[in-house]
Protein backbone atom coordinates (compact mmCIF):
# COMPACT_ATOMS: atom_id res chain seq x y z
CA UNK A 1 0.00 0.00 0.00
CA UNK A 2 1.41 3.34 -0.95
CA UNK A 3 2.33 5.95 1.61
CA UNK A 4 -0.33 8.28 0.19
CA UNK A 5 -3.00 5.55 0.44
CA UNK A 6 -1.91 4.83 4.03
CA UNK A 7 -2.13 8.52 4.84
CA UNK A 8 -5.64 8.66 3.37
CA UNK A 9 -6.65 5.62 5.39
CA UNK A 10 -5.23 7.14 8.56
CA UNK A 11 -7.02 10.38 7.82
CA UNK A 12 -10.32 8.49 7.29
CA UNK A 13 -9.86 6.59 10.53
CA UNK A 14 -9.12 9.75 12.50
CA UNK A 15 -12.15 11.43 10.96
CA UNK A 16 -14.29 8.40 11.91
CA UNK A 17 -13.07 8.64 15.53
CA UNK A 18 -13.91 12.35 15.61
CA UNK A 19 -17.38 11.71 14.15
CA UNK A 20 -18.02 8.87 16.60
CA UNK A 21 -16.93 11.06 19.53
CA UNK A 22 -19.30 13.79 18.36
CA UNK A 23 -22.07 11.19 17.96
CA UNK A 24 -21.48 9.90 21.47
CA UNK A 25 -21.66 13.44 22.82
CA UNK A 26 -24.83 14.17 20.85
CA UNK A 27 -26.40 10.88 21.94
CA UNK A 28 -25.42 11.49 25.58
CA UNK A 29 -26.97 14.97 25.46
CA UNK A 30 -30.08 13.65 23.72
CA UNK A 31 -30.33 10.85 26.26
CA UNK A 32 -29.98 13.32 29.13
CA UNK A 33 -32.63 15.62 27.67
CA UNK A 34 -34.86 12.66 26.98
CA UNK A 35 -34.46 11.46 30.57
CA UNK A 36 -35.24 14.94 31.85
CA UNK A 37 -38.40 15.13 29.76
CA UNK A 38 -39.36 11.63 30.84
CA UNK A 39 -38.77 12.42 34.53
CA UNK A 40 -40.72 15.67 34.19
CA UNK A 41 -43.56 13.90 32.42
CA UNK A 42 -43.54 11.14 35.02
CA UNK A 43 -43.57 13.66 37.84
CA UNK A 44 -46.46 15.51 36.18
CA UNK A 45 -48.44 12.29 35.81
CA UNK A 46 -47.66 11.31 39.40
CA UNK A 47 -48.97 14.68 40.57
CA UNK A 48 -52.24 14.13 38.71
CA UNK A 49 -52.38 10.61 40.07
CA UNK A 50 -51.75 11.85 43.59
CA UNK A 51 -54.16 14.79 43.67
CA UNK A 52 -56.96 13.08 41.76
CA UNK A 53 -59.87 13.19 44.21
CA UNK A 54 -61.49 10.12 42.64
CA UNK A 55 -60.38 6.63 43.56
CA UNK A 56 -58.41 5.25 40.61
CA UNK A 57 -57.81 1.54 40.16
CA UNK A 58 -56.08 -0.39 37.42
CA UNK A 59 -57.49 -3.90 37.22
CA UNK A 60 -56.11 -6.83 35.28
CA UNK A 61 -58.20 -8.85 32.84
CA UNK A 62 -58.76 -11.53 35.48
CA UNK A 63 -60.01 -8.91 37.95
CA UNK A 64 -57.04 -8.42 40.25
CA UNK A 65 -56.04 -4.97 41.45
CA UNK A 66 -52.85 -3.90 39.71
CA UNK A 67 -52.49 -0.33 40.92
CA UNK A 68 -54.37 2.19 43.06
CA UNK A 69 -53.95 5.86 43.92
CA UNK A 70 -53.97 7.48 47.34
CA UNK A 71 -57.67 8.37 47.09
CA UNK A 72 -58.50 4.66 46.82
CA UNK A 73 -56.67 3.97 50.08
CA UNK A 74 -58.47 6.88 51.73
CA UNK A 75 -61.84 5.71 50.46
CA UNK A 76 -61.50 2.02 51.27
CA UNK A 77 -59.14 2.05 54.24
CA UNK A 78 -56.64 -0.36 52.68
CA UNK A 79 -52.99 0.49 52.07
CA UNK A 80 -51.74 0.38 48.48
CA UNK A 81 -49.81 -2.80 49.29
CA UNK A 82 -52.96 -4.46 50.69
CA UNK A 83 -54.88 -3.51 47.54
CA UNK A 84 -52.35 -4.80 45.00
CA UNK A 85 -53.32 -8.28 43.85
CA UNK A 86 -56.64 -8.22 45.70
CA UNK A 87 -59.55 -9.83 43.79
CA UNK A 88 -61.95 -7.11 42.68
CA UNK A 89 -64.94 -8.91 44.26
CA UNK A 90 -63.54 -8.17 47.71
CA UNK A 91 -63.79 -4.44 47.08
CA UNK A 92 -66.64 -4.50 44.63
CA UNK A 93 -69.00 -7.49 44.88
CA UNK A 94 -70.44 -6.99 41.38
CA UNK A 95 -67.13 -5.85 39.90
CA UNK A 96 -66.28 -9.07 38.06
CA UNK A 97 -69.55 -8.96 36.10
CA UNK A 98 -68.98 -5.31 35.21
CA UNK A 99 -65.44 -6.01 33.99
CA UNK A 100 -66.71 -8.89 31.88
CA UNK A 101 -69.20 -6.55 30.26
CA UNK A 102 -66.57 -3.82 29.72
CA UNK A 103 -64.23 -6.40 28.15
CA UNK A 104 -66.86 -7.02 25.48
CA UNK A 105 -66.82 -3.35 24.59
CA UNK A 106 -69.60 -1.95 26.79
CA UNK A 107 -67.93 0.83 28.78
CA UNK A 108 -69.36 1.71 32.17
CA UNK A 109 -69.94 5.42 32.66
CA UNK A 110 -71.07 7.03 35.91
CA UNK A 111 -73.09 4.19 37.41
CA UNK A 112 -73.89 3.92 41.08
CA UNK A 113 -72.41 0.88 42.81
CA UNK A 114 -71.53 -0.19 46.32
CA UNK A 115 -67.93 -0.90 47.31
CA UNK A 116 -66.80 -2.56 50.52
CA UNK A 117 -64.29 -0.80 52.75
CA UNK A 118 -61.78 -2.56 54.98
CA UNK A 119 -64.21 -2.25 57.92
CA UNK A 120 -66.78 -4.13 55.80
CA UNK A 121 -69.00 -1.04 55.54
CA UNK A 122 -70.62 -0.49 52.15
CA UNK A 123 -69.72 2.77 50.42
CA UNK A 124 -71.94 4.17 47.65
CA UNK A 125 -69.74 5.21 44.70
CA UNK A 126 -70.23 6.52 41.19
CA UNK A 127 -68.08 4.31 38.96
CA UNK A 128 -66.75 4.59 35.41
CA UNK A 129 -64.73 1.77 33.84
CA UNK A 130 -62.88 1.74 30.53
CA UNK A 131 -60.72 -0.91 28.92
CA UNK A 132 -57.13 -0.03 28.12
CA UNK A 133 -54.08 -1.82 26.77
CA UNK A 134 -51.41 -2.18 29.43
CA UNK A 135 -47.66 -1.80 29.01
CA UNK A 136 -47.34 -5.53 28.44
CA UNK A 137 -49.98 -5.27 25.67
CA UNK A 138 -52.59 -7.04 27.78
CA UNK A 139 -56.12 -5.77 28.27
CA UNK A 140 -56.63 -3.92 31.54
CA UNK A 141 -59.37 -1.80 33.09
CA UNK A 142 -59.16 1.76 34.29
CA UNK A 143 -61.68 2.31 37.02
CA UNK A 144 -62.59 5.72 38.49
CA UNK A 145 -64.93 6.06 41.45
CA UNK A 146 -66.33 9.06 43.32
CA UNK A 147 -67.47 8.80 46.92
CA UNK A 148 -71.23 9.42 47.06
CA UNK A 149 -71.62 9.39 50.83
CA UNK A 150 -71.62 13.15 51.23
CA UNK A 151 -74.05 13.60 48.36
CA UNK A 152 -76.31 10.90 49.78
CA UNK A 153 -76.18 12.57 53.17
CA UNK A 154 -77.05 15.93 51.64
CA UNK A 155 -79.97 14.34 49.82
CA UNK A 156 -81.16 12.73 53.04
CA UNK A 157 -80.76 16.00 54.88
CA UNK A 158 -82.69 17.82 52.20
CA UNK A 159 -85.50 15.27 52.33
CA UNK A 160 -85.50 15.41 56.12
CA UNK A 161 -85.46 19.21 56.10
CA UNK A 162 -88.33 19.27 53.61
CA UNK A 163 -90.26 16.88 55.82
CA UNK A 164 -89.56 18.99 58.88
CA UNK A 165 -90.55 22.09 56.98
CA UNK A 166 -93.86 20.49 56.03
CA UNK A 167 -94.48 19.39 59.59
CA UNK A 168 -93.47 22.85 60.78
CA UNK A 169 -95.84 24.55 58.38
CA UNK A 170 -98.60 22.21 59.47
CA UNK A 171 -97.84 22.91 63.12
CA UNK A 172 -97.80 26.65 62.46
CA UNK A 173 -101.17 26.36 60.72
CA UNK A 174 -102.67 24.31 63.55
CA UNK A 175 -101.21 26.72 66.09
CA UNK A 176 -102.77 29.63 64.27
CA UNK A 177 -106.16 27.89 64.15
CA UNK A 178 -106.01 27.10 67.86
CA UNK A 179 -104.83 30.56 68.74
CA UNK A 180 -107.97 32.40 67.61
CA UNK A 181 -110.54 30.29 69.55
CA UNK A 182 -108.19 30.31 72.54
CA UNK A 183 -108.28 34.08 72.50
CA UNK A 184 -112.07 34.26 72.67
CA UNK A 185 -112.20 31.42 75.18
CA UNK A 186 -109.82 33.45 77.34
CA UNK A 187 -111.80 36.66 76.83
CA UNK A 188 -115.06 34.95 77.69
CA UNK A 189 -113.63 33.23 80.75
CA UNK A 190 -112.36 36.64 81.88
CA UNK A 191 -115.85 38.06 81.26
CA UNK A 192 -117.50 35.18 83.13
CA UNK A 193 -115.08 35.52 86.06
CA UNK A 194 -115.82 39.22 86.35
CA UNK A 195 -119.56 38.56 86.02
CA UNK A 196 -119.35 35.71 88.51
CA UNK A 197 -117.55 37.96 90.92
CA UNK A 198 -120.42 40.48 90.63
CA UNK A 199 -123.02 37.78 91.03
CA UNK A 200 -121.26 36.51 94.15
CA UNK A 201 -121.51 39.97 95.64
CA UNK A 202 -125.22 40.07 94.78
CA UNK A 203 -125.73 36.59 96.25
CA UNK A 204 -123.81 37.61 99.39
CA UNK A 205 -125.96 40.67 99.83
CA UNK A 206 -129.15 38.64 99.28
CA UNK A 207 -127.93 36.04 101.77
CA UNK A 208 -127.35 38.72 104.40
CA UNK A 209 -130.73 40.32 103.64
CA UNK A 210 -132.47 36.97 103.80
CA UNK A 211 -131.04 36.30 107.24
CA UNK A 212 -132.20 39.71 108.53
CA UNK A 213 -135.73 39.60 107.12
CA UNK A 214 -138.41 39.88 109.86
CA UNK A 215 -140.60 36.89 110.47
CA UNK A 216 -143.35 36.72 107.85
CA UNK A 217 -141.71 39.21 105.52
CA UNK A 218 -142.01 36.58 102.81
CA UNK A 219 -144.26 33.60 102.54
CA UNK A 220 -143.01 30.46 104.25
CA UNK A 221 -143.38 28.52 101.03
CA UNK A 222 -141.16 31.04 99.19
CA UNK A 223 -138.59 30.91 101.94
CA UNK A 224 -138.56 27.10 101.79
CA UNK A 225 -138.20 27.11 98.01
CA UNK A 226 -135.27 29.55 98.20
CA UNK A 227 -133.53 27.43 100.84
CA UNK A 228 -134.08 24.25 98.75
CA UNK A 229 -132.72 25.92 95.62
CA UNK A 230 -129.73 27.28 97.61
CA UNK A 231 -128.89 23.82 98.86
CA UNK A 232 -129.47 22.12 95.48
CA UNK A 233 -127.14 24.61 93.82
CA UNK A 234 -124.61 24.11 96.58
CA UNK A 235 -124.23 27.88 96.60
CA UNK A 236 -121.85 27.98 99.55
CA UNK A 237 -119.48 25.58 97.78
CA UNK A 238 -119.76 27.47 94.49
CA UNK A 239 -119.04 30.77 96.28
CA UNK A 240 -115.96 29.22 97.80
CA UNK A 241 -114.56 27.25 94.78
CA UNK A 242 -115.95 29.21 91.84
CA UNK A 243 -113.23 31.88 91.72
CA UNK A 244 -110.56 29.15 91.95
CA UNK A 245 -112.18 27.30 89.02
CA UNK A 246 -112.06 30.47 86.92
CA UNK A 247 -108.41 30.98 87.88
CA UNK A 248 -107.60 27.41 86.87
CA UNK A 249 -109.50 27.78 83.60
CA UNK A 250 -107.61 30.98 82.82
CA UNK A 251 -104.38 29.33 83.84
CA UNK A 252 -105.12 26.48 81.42
CA UNK A 253 -105.96 28.93 78.65
CA UNK A 254 -102.70 30.77 79.34
CA UNK A 255 -100.72 27.52 79.16
CA UNK A 256 -102.34 26.51 75.88
CA UNK A 257 -101.67 29.99 74.51
CA UNK A 258 -98.04 29.74 75.58
CA UNK A 259 -97.61 26.34 73.90
CA UNK A 260 -99.31 27.62 70.76
CA UNK A 261 -97.09 30.70 70.72
CA UNK A 262 -94.01 28.50 71.24
CA UNK A 263 -95.07 26.19 68.42
CA UNK A 264 -95.57 29.16 66.12
CA UNK A 265 -92.21 30.54 67.07
CA UNK A 266 -90.50 27.14 66.84
CA UNK A 267 -91.87 26.31 63.44
CA UNK A 268 -91.21 29.73 62.01
CA UNK A 269 -89.80 28.99 58.55
CA UNK A 270 -86.25 30.23 58.20
CA UNK A 271 -85.21 31.92 54.97
CA UNK A 272 -82.00 33.82 55.39
CA UNK A 273 -80.17 34.25 58.66
CA UNK A 274 -81.57 36.79 61.04
CA UNK A 275 -80.54 38.04 64.49
CA UNK A 276 -82.13 35.78 67.09
CA UNK A 277 -82.44 35.59 70.83
CA UNK A 278 -81.00 32.18 71.66
CA UNK A 279 -82.29 32.25 75.23
CA UNK A 280 -85.80 32.69 73.88
CA UNK A 281 -85.14 29.81 71.45
CA UNK A 282 -84.11 27.61 74.40
CA UNK A 283 -87.26 28.42 76.35
CA UNK A 284 -89.49 27.93 73.33
CA UNK A 285 -87.94 24.57 72.57
CA UNK A 286 -88.27 23.43 76.16
CA UNK A 287 -91.95 24.29 76.05
CA UNK A 288 -92.48 22.34 72.83
CA UNK A 289 -90.45 19.37 74.06
CA UNK A 290 -91.96 19.31 77.57
CA UNK A 291 -93.84 16.09 76.91
CA UNK A 292 -90.57 14.34 76.11
CA UNK A 293 -88.86 15.09 79.41
CA UNK A 294 -91.41 16.13 82.03
CA UNK A 295 -91.93 12.60 83.38
CA UNK A 296 -88.23 11.70 83.55
CA UNK A 297 -86.34 14.90 84.25
CA UNK A 298 -86.47 18.30 85.81
CA UNK A 299 -85.03 21.12 83.80
CA UNK A 300 -82.65 23.67 85.20
CA UNK A 301 -81.99 26.79 83.17
CA UNK A 302 -78.83 28.81 83.64
CA UNK A 303 -79.19 31.42 80.94
CA UNK A 304 -76.53 34.06 80.71
CA UNK A 305 -76.69 37.33 78.86
CA UNK A 306 -76.34 36.76 75.13
CA UNK A 307 -76.15 39.21 72.27
CA UNK A 308 -78.45 38.54 69.34
CA UNK A 309 -76.90 35.89 67.13
CA UNK A 310 -77.21 35.86 63.35
CA UNK A 311 -78.62 32.41 62.58
CA UNK A 312 -81.40 30.32 61.10
CA UNK A 313 -83.45 30.28 64.27
CA UNK A 314 -85.72 27.44 63.10
CA UNK A 315 -82.65 25.25 62.54
CA UNK A 316 -81.20 26.12 65.93
CA UNK A 317 -84.56 25.21 67.50
CA UNK A 318 -84.35 21.87 65.70
CA UNK A 319 -80.86 21.20 67.08
CA UNK A 320 -81.93 22.16 70.62
CA UNK A 321 -84.97 19.90 70.30
CA UNK A 322 -82.74 16.99 69.21
CA UNK A 323 -80.36 17.54 72.13
CA UNK A 324 -83.15 17.89 74.69
CA UNK A 325 -84.97 14.79 73.42
CA UNK A 326 -81.67 12.86 73.42
CA UNK A 327 -81.00 14.06 76.98
CA UNK A 328 -84.44 12.86 78.08
CA UNK A 329 -83.87 9.48 76.41
CA UNK A 330 -80.44 9.15 78.07
CA UNK A 331 -81.97 9.84 81.48
CA UNK A 332 -84.89 7.49 80.79
CA UNK A 333 -82.45 4.72 79.80
CA UNK A 334 -80.55 4.98 83.07
CA UNK A 335 -81.99 2.72 85.76
CA UNK A 336 -83.66 4.80 88.52
CA UNK A 337 -84.53 2.33 91.31
CA UNK A 338 -85.94 5.05 93.56
CA UNK A 339 -87.98 6.50 90.70
CA UNK A 340 -86.30 9.86 91.19
CA UNK A 341 -86.28 12.16 88.18
CA UNK A 342 -83.04 12.98 86.41
CA UNK A 343 -81.88 16.44 85.50
CA UNK A 344 -81.45 18.33 82.26
CA UNK A 345 -79.43 21.50 82.59
CA UNK A 346 -79.36 24.06 79.81
CA UNK A 347 -76.80 26.84 80.08
CA UNK A 348 -76.06 29.72 77.77
CA UNK A 349 -73.04 32.01 77.82
CA UNK A 350 -70.66 34.02 75.70
CA UNK A 351 -67.23 32.46 75.41
CA UNK A 352 -64.89 34.81 73.58
CA UNK A 353 -66.26 35.28 70.08
CA UNK A 354 -68.88 32.57 70.32
CA UNK A 355 -72.23 32.09 71.91
CA UNK A 356 -72.32 28.75 73.71
CA UNK A 357 -75.28 26.64 74.66
CA UNK A 358 -74.61 23.58 76.82
CA UNK A 359 -77.23 20.86 77.21
CA UNK A 360 -76.35 18.42 80.00
CA UNK A 361 -78.10 15.31 81.12
CA UNK A 362 -77.65 13.09 84.15
CA UNK A 363 -77.79 9.91 82.07
CA UNK A 364 -75.27 7.07 81.87
CA UNK A 365 -72.86 8.77 79.48
CA UNK A 366 -71.87 7.59 76.00
CA UNK A 367 -69.87 4.33 75.87
CA UNK A 368 -66.30 4.76 74.62
CA UNK A 369 -66.77 2.50 71.59
CA UNK A 370 -69.83 4.46 70.48
CA UNK A 371 -68.36 7.94 70.89
CA UNK A 372 -66.48 8.13 67.55
CA UNK A 373 -69.63 7.26 65.62
CA UNK A 374 -72.38 9.33 67.18
CA UNK A 375 -72.25 11.99 64.45
CA UNK A 376 -72.34 9.40 61.63
CA UNK A 377 -75.51 9.46 59.58
CA UNK A 378 -77.89 6.57 60.32
CA UNK A 379 -75.94 5.57 63.42
CA UNK A 380 -78.16 4.99 66.45
CA UNK A 381 -78.11 2.87 69.57
CA UNK A 382 -81.83 3.41 70.13
CA UNK A 383 -84.35 0.72 69.40
CA UNK A 384 -86.21 0.70 66.10
CA UNK A 385 -88.76 3.50 65.96
CA UNK A 386 -87.17 5.58 68.71
CA UNK A 387 -84.22 6.97 66.78
CA UNK A 388 -83.42 7.36 63.11
CA UNK A 389 -79.74 8.01 63.59
CA UNK A 390 -80.21 11.31 61.82
CA UNK A 391 -80.56 13.71 64.74
CA UNK A 392 -76.94 14.30 65.67
CA UNK A 393 -75.67 14.05 62.08
CA UNK A 394 -78.16 16.69 61.01
CA UNK A 395 -77.50 18.78 64.09
CA UNK A 396 -73.79 18.87 63.44
CA UNK A 397 -74.40 19.66 59.79
CA UNK A 398 -76.69 22.56 60.78
CA UNK A 399 -74.25 23.98 63.31
CA UNK A 400 -71.00 23.37 61.42
CA UNK A 401 -71.96 23.65 57.76
CA UNK A 402 -74.76 26.20 57.89
CA UNK A 403 -73.47 28.38 60.72
CA UNK A 404 -69.70 27.82 60.82
CA UNK A 405 -69.97 26.78 64.45
CA UNK A 406 -69.26 23.54 66.24
CA UNK A 407 -71.17 20.81 68.02
CA UNK A 408 -69.09 18.81 70.47
CA UNK A 409 -69.65 16.75 73.57
CA UNK A 410 -68.09 15.69 76.82
CA UNK A 411 -69.23 12.53 78.51
CA UNK A 412 -68.51 10.74 81.72
CA UNK A 413 -69.66 7.21 82.51
CA UNK A 414 -72.60 7.19 84.94
CA UNK A 415 -72.42 10.99 85.29
CA UNK A 416 -73.95 12.04 82.00
CA UNK A 417 -73.18 13.93 78.84
CA UNK A 418 -72.97 17.57 77.88
CA UNK A 419 -73.34 18.75 74.29
CA UNK A 420 -71.92 22.16 73.43
CA UNK A 421 -73.33 24.27 70.62
CA UNK A 422 -70.93 27.05 69.72
CA UNK A 423 -72.07 29.70 67.27
CA UNK A 424 -69.86 32.52 66.07
CA UNK A 425 -71.10 35.95 67.05
CA UNK A 426 -71.63 38.10 64.01
CA UNK A 427 -68.57 40.26 63.32
CA UNK A 428 -69.07 43.92 64.18
CA UNK A 429 -72.05 43.07 66.33
CA UNK A 430 -72.82 45.84 68.77
CA UNK A 431 -73.73 43.05 71.12
CA UNK A 432 -77.01 44.40 72.36
CA UNK A 433 -77.67 42.44 75.51
CA UNK A 434 -80.92 40.61 75.41
CA UNK A 435 -81.62 40.27 79.09
CA UNK A 436 -81.70 36.76 80.45
CA UNK A 437 -85.05 35.67 81.63
CA UNK A 438 -85.32 35.87 85.40
Amino acid at each position, binding site marked *: *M*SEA*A*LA*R*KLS*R*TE*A*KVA*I*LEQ*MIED*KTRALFMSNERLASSLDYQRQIYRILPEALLILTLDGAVKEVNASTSTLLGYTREECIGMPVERLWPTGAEVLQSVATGVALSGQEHSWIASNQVGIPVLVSVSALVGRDSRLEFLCLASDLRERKQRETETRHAQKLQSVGQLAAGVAHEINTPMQFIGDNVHFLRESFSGLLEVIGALDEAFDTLPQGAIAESQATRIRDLWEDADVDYVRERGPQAFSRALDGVARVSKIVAAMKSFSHPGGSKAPADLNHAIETTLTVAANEYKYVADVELQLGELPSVLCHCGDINQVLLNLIVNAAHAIDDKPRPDGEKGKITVRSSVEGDVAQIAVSDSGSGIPTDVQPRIFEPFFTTKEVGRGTGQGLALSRSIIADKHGGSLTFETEPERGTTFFIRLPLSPGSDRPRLGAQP
Partner: protein
Amino acid sequence: MKGIIFNLLEDFIVEGWGDEALDEILALCPLKTKEPFVGPGTYPDADLFTIATQASSKLGVPLPDALRAFGKYALPKLLARYPSFREGHTDAKSFLTSVHGVIHVEVHKLMPKAVTPNFTYEDAGPGGLIIHYESSRKLCHLMEGMLEAVGEEFGQDLQYVQTRCLHDGDSHCEFALHFGAAQSRVA
Protein backbone atom coordinates in the same frame (compact mmCIF):
# COMPACT_ATOMS: atom_id res chain seq x y z
CA MET B 1 -28.95 3.11 5.03
CA LYS B 2 -27.11 2.70 8.31
CA GLY B 3 -23.34 3.22 8.43
CA ILE B 4 -22.74 -0.30 9.68
CA ILE B 5 -23.69 -1.66 6.24
CA PHE B 6 -21.29 0.78 4.57
CA ASN B 7 -18.53 -0.31 6.99
CA LEU B 8 -19.23 -3.99 6.25
CA LEU B 9 -19.05 -3.28 2.53
CA GLU B 10 -15.73 -1.50 3.05
CA ASP B 11 -14.44 -4.47 5.09
CA PHE B 12 -15.72 -6.86 2.43
CA ILE B 13 -13.72 -5.05 -0.27
CA VAL B 14 -10.61 -4.76 1.91
CA GLU B 15 -10.70 -8.45 2.89
CA GLY B 16 -11.20 -9.51 -0.74
CA TRP B 17 -9.10 -7.05 -2.66
CA GLY B 18 -7.06 -5.03 -0.17
CA ASP B 19 -6.91 -1.51 1.25
CA GLU B 20 -5.68 0.05 -1.94
CA ALA B 21 -8.64 -1.33 -3.91
CA LEU B 22 -11.04 0.26 -1.43
CA ASP B 23 -9.09 3.49 -1.54
CA GLU B 24 -9.25 3.55 -5.31
CA ILE B 25 -12.94 2.65 -5.45
CA LEU B 26 -13.85 5.37 -2.92
CA ALA B 27 -11.75 7.89 -4.82
CA LEU B 28 -13.74 7.13 -8.00
CA CYS B 29 -17.19 7.33 -6.33
CA PRO B 30 -19.13 10.61 -6.60
CA LEU B 31 -20.61 10.23 -3.10
CA LYS B 32 -23.12 12.56 -1.53
CA THR B 33 -21.50 11.84 1.83
CA LYS B 34 -18.22 13.65 2.22
CA GLU B 35 -17.12 12.35 5.62
CA PRO B 36 -16.15 8.73 6.39
CA PHE B 37 -18.99 6.32 7.15
CA VAL B 38 -19.46 5.31 10.79
CA GLY B 39 -21.70 2.53 12.09
CA PRO B 40 -24.38 4.56 13.88
CA GLY B 41 -24.64 7.15 11.08
CA THR B 42 -27.39 7.20 8.48
CA TYR B 43 -26.41 7.78 4.86
CA PRO B 44 -28.12 7.96 1.47
CA ASP B 45 -28.96 4.58 -0.07
CA ALA B 46 -27.56 5.94 -3.35
CA ASP B 47 -24.08 6.09 -1.83
CA LEU B 48 -24.16 2.34 -1.09
CA PHE B 49 -25.25 1.57 -4.65
CA THR B 50 -22.57 3.89 -6.02
CA ILE B 51 -19.83 2.11 -4.05
CA ALA B 52 -21.22 -1.36 -4.91
CA THR B 53 -21.52 -0.49 -8.60
CA GLN B 54 -18.03 1.04 -8.69
CA ALA B 55 -16.58 -2.00 -6.89
CA SER B 56 -18.35 -4.36 -9.28
CA SER B 57 -16.96 -2.50 -12.24
CA LYS B 58 -13.48 -2.06 -10.84
CA LEU B 59 -13.16 -5.69 -9.68
CA GLY B 60 -14.84 -7.18 -12.73
CA VAL B 61 -17.61 -8.91 -10.80
CA PRO B 62 -21.26 -8.58 -11.94
CA LEU B 63 -23.25 -6.46 -9.50
CA PRO B 64 -25.77 -9.23 -8.57
CA ASP B 65 -22.92 -11.60 -7.78
CA ALA B 66 -21.10 -8.89 -5.83
CA LEU B 67 -24.21 -8.18 -3.75
CA ARG B 68 -24.85 -11.89 -3.20
CA ALA B 69 -21.27 -12.36 -2.00
CA PHE B 70 -21.54 -9.29 0.21
CA GLY B 71 -24.77 -10.65 1.78
CA LYS B 72 -23.10 -13.96 2.54
CA TYR B 73 -20.14 -12.08 4.05
CA ALA B 74 -22.21 -9.59 6.06
CA LEU B 75 -24.66 -11.90 7.86
CA PRO B 76 -22.17 -13.75 10.13
CA LYS B 77 -20.49 -10.42 10.89
CA LEU B 78 -23.81 -8.92 11.95
CA LEU B 79 -24.65 -11.95 14.11
CA ALA B 80 -21.24 -11.75 15.73
CA ARG B 81 -21.86 -8.11 16.54
CA TYR B 82 -25.41 -8.67 17.79
CA PRO B 83 -25.36 -12.21 19.26
CA SER B 84 -28.74 -11.73 20.92
CA PHE B 85 -30.41 -11.86 17.48
CA ARG B 86 -29.36 -15.49 17.14
CA GLU B 87 -30.01 -16.57 20.72
CA GLY B 88 -32.80 -19.06 21.20
CA HIS B 89 -32.77 -20.26 17.56
CA THR B 90 -31.61 -23.77 16.77
CA ASP B 91 -32.56 -23.86 13.10
CA ALA B 92 -32.65 -21.60 10.07
CA LYS B 93 -36.44 -21.48 9.77
CA SER B 94 -36.90 -20.37 13.33
CA PHE B 95 -34.27 -17.66 12.87
CA LEU B 96 -35.63 -16.40 9.54
CA THR B 97 -39.20 -16.14 10.80
CA SER B 98 -37.93 -13.94 13.66
CA VAL B 99 -36.22 -11.45 11.34
CA HIS B 100 -39.14 -9.13 10.80
CA GLY B 101 -41.02 -9.40 14.10
CA VAL B 102 -38.02 -9.49 16.42
CA ILE B 103 -34.74 -8.57 14.76
CA HIS B 104 -36.01 -5.58 12.79
CA VAL B 105 -37.76 -4.35 15.95
CA GLU B 106 -34.48 -4.64 17.85
CA VAL B 107 -32.66 -2.85 15.01
CA HIS B 108 -35.06 0.05 15.40
CA LYS B 109 -34.35 0.16 19.13
CA LEU B 110 -30.60 0.39 18.45
CA MET B 111 -30.92 2.66 15.41
CA PRO B 112 -34.22 4.54 15.45
CA LYS B 113 -33.66 6.02 11.99
CA ALA B 114 -33.00 2.64 10.34
CA VAL B 115 -35.28 1.78 7.42
CA THR B 116 -35.71 -1.97 7.34
CA PRO B 117 -37.33 -4.03 4.55
CA ASN B 118 -40.73 -5.59 5.04
CA PHE B 119 -40.87 -9.39 5.38
CA THR B 120 -43.98 -11.50 5.39
CA TYR B 121 -44.02 -15.25 5.74
CA GLU B 122 -46.03 -18.21 4.57
CA ASP B 123 -45.42 -21.48 6.32
CA ALA B 124 -44.94 -24.22 3.74
CA GLY B 125 -44.87 -27.18 6.09
CA PRO B 126 -42.13 -28.49 8.41
CA GLY B 127 -39.35 -28.20 5.85
CA GLY B 128 -40.56 -25.21 3.90
CA LEU B 129 -41.08 -21.47 4.14
CA ILE B 130 -42.07 -18.73 1.73
CA ILE B 131 -40.67 -15.28 2.35
CA HIS B 132 -42.04 -12.14 0.75
CA TYR B 133 -39.47 -9.36 0.59
CA GLU B 134 -40.52 -5.76 -0.02
CA SER B 135 -38.07 -2.89 -0.17
CA SER B 136 -37.63 0.17 -2.31
CA ARG B 137 -33.89 -0.69 -2.33
CA LYS B 138 -34.63 -3.92 -4.26
CA LEU B 139 -31.67 -5.68 -2.61
CA CYS B 140 -32.91 -9.20 -3.30
CA HIS B 141 -29.43 -10.28 -4.40
CA LEU B 142 -28.06 -9.25 -1.06
CA MET B 143 -30.85 -11.27 0.52
CA GLU B 144 -29.92 -14.34 -1.48
CA GLY B 145 -26.39 -14.16 -0.05
CA MET B 146 -27.77 -13.74 3.42
CA LEU B 147 -30.09 -16.78 2.99
CA GLU B 148 -27.10 -18.90 2.02
CA ALA B 149 -25.23 -17.60 5.07
CA VAL B 150 -28.17 -18.49 7.33
CA GLY B 151 -28.08 -22.09 6.05
CA GLU B 152 -24.38 -22.27 6.84
CA GLU B 153 -24.83 -20.57 10.22
CA PHE B 154 -27.23 -23.28 11.33
CA GLY B 155 -25.47 -26.13 9.51
CA GLN B 156 -28.48 -26.76 7.30
CA ASP B 157 -28.84 -27.42 3.64
CA LEU B 158 -30.97 -24.43 2.71
CA GLN B 159 -32.28 -24.46 -0.85
CA TYR B 160 -34.25 -21.57 -2.25
CA VAL B 161 -35.98 -20.56 -5.43
CA GLN B 162 -36.86 -16.96 -6.18
CA THR B 163 -40.33 -17.08 -7.69
CA ARG B 164 -40.98 -13.35 -7.94
CA CYS B 165 -38.67 -10.38 -8.22
CA LEU B 166 -39.00 -6.63 -7.83
CA HIS B 167 -36.56 -6.25 -10.71
CA ASP B 168 -39.07 -8.06 -12.96
CA GLY B 169 -41.86 -5.63 -12.04
CA ASP B 170 -43.43 -7.73 -9.30
CA SER B 171 -44.76 -5.97 -6.23
CA HIS B 172 -42.33 -7.94 -4.07
CA CYS B 173 -39.69 -10.61 -4.24
CA GLU B 174 -40.73 -14.10 -3.23
CA PHE B 175 -38.37 -16.80 -2.02
CA ALA B 176 -39.55 -20.39 -1.63
CA LEU B 177 -37.22 -22.07 0.86
CA HIS B 178 -36.62 -25.70 1.63
CA PHE B 179 -34.66 -26.71 4.69
CA GLY B 180 -32.65 -29.87 4.99
CA ALA B 181 -31.89 -31.48 8.33
CA ALA B 182 -29.60 -29.59 10.64
CA GLN B 183 -26.06 -30.90 10.78
CA SER B 184 -23.67 -30.43 13.61
CA ARG B 185 -21.21 -27.74 12.70
CA VAL B 186 -17.59 -28.70 12.40
CA ALA B 187 -15.06 -26.06 13.36
